[in-house]
């Protein structure tokens, strides 16, 4: 790139590849820069000079293009996190799954005394706390649900055995709480 001739060609190739709306073949490049002999050495030198940068010049199937370095993908996404409060139905369903896993949806409904909407389990799966855990080998082969390692991590539990038992809950006064604001519907009713 010290030769001014080479530098001019390299700069032209750089600009052409940058402004192109698709990867370019050697033929395409020649059409843009005019007949200047073999472009390949110039392209290879250019690719080498970009190799340590955050932008790389790469050849894929005879076509050249600039792209971001493959190890930097995570910088190109930003996660804008919005914190949402889990609904009461969500918390209860999560609790039932945690205490009774693997558990089927009819069982969850039976324990909660309320029909569980598919959306509630979807939210728990989206949160990464619940996963499908195979099918129960009973008539209808219902899908079972269980908690995930992320669930344990989120609640800082080493294992499910760390969940307090009923006696602990009672001792902690958690069984004597006022009835929840959400009046449980008879089974078969719909949640929100």
């Amino acid at each position: 790139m010290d030769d001014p001739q080479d530098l001019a060609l390299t700069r032209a190739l750089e600009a052409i590849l940058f402004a192109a709306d698709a990867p370019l073949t050697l033929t395409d490049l020649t059409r843009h820069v005019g007949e200047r002999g073999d472009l390949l050495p110039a392209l290879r030198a250019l690719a080498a000079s970009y190799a340590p940068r955050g932008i790389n010049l790469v050849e894929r199937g005879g076509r050249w293009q600039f792209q971001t370095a493959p190890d930097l993908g995570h910088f190109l996404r930003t996660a804008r996190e919005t914190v949402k409060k889990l609904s009461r139905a969500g918390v209860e369903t999560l609790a039932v799954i945690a205490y009774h896993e693997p558990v089927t949806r009819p069982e969850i409904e039976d324990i909660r005394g309320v029909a569980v909407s598919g959306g509630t389990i979807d939210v728990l799966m989206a949160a990464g706390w619940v996963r499908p855990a195979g099918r129960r080998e009973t008539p209808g082969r219902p899908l079972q649900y269980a908690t995930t390692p992320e669930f344990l991590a989120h609640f800082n539990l080493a294992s499910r055995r760390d969940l307090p038992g009923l006696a602990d809950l009672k001792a902690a006064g958690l069984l004597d709480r006022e009835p929840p604001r959400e009046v449980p519907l008879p089974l078969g009713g719909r949640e929100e």
Partner: protein
Amino acid sequence: MSEGADFDAPVRASPPPGTLVLQLGSWEGPLDLLLTLARAQKVDLAQISILALVDQYLDFIREAKALSLELAADYLVMAAWLAYLKSLLLLPKDPEAEPDPAELALKLQFQLQRLEAMREAGQALLARPQLGWDMFRRPNPEGLAEDRRAVYDCSYYDLLSAYGAITARRTRSVHVVRRRAVMALDEAMERLEHLLGRSLDWTELSRFLPGDLRDESYARSVLASSFVAALELTRQGKATLSQGAAFAPILLKARHDG
């Protein structure tokens, strides 16, 4: 502007050589025309003779042909104002004059300079490298993604208290049954049959009831169940019922057929 008749005269076929082409439509307003005339003086605008410029403008308007009236209005207003300015400038200097003609002329000169400066600035801008002609950006950048990820908030306490609430909800229904205790029909029959076995005389039904019924709702339940039990035993042929009159005591005795 007394040459009104000239406005109807035919357009000159070709202007004499060395004169300006007199078409108002080609100017961006009177100030533009004035600036063009001033440029014809070929001097720095700072050095320009305002009086000469005024004369040139007035001559120009006098000569102008093909003047459409709506286009001409602005030019005529300017001509009138310039004629007024010229008269002020030619009068002997009066320090009390308001407005000061020198200041008016200065303002006109400033406007011309400023317009010329903006013209040149516009050309200087156009002479610069331009995006989409000289410089190019990437045509189809990937863009930067923004994941809107919902993070759910649920504390350990929320989880446990929810499970506590569910459990409490389920066990509470048992409490309910206990508090509203009743004597079931089977129990009442078993009890009545047992007691009746020993009593062969007519006995009031109320005497078969337990003696210490402090809970009134339980007492009512015992009475109702025992009455139904008595009817049932009678139907089965194990007892006989008797009542002297409406609301009189109900009497009961065992029946031993064969």
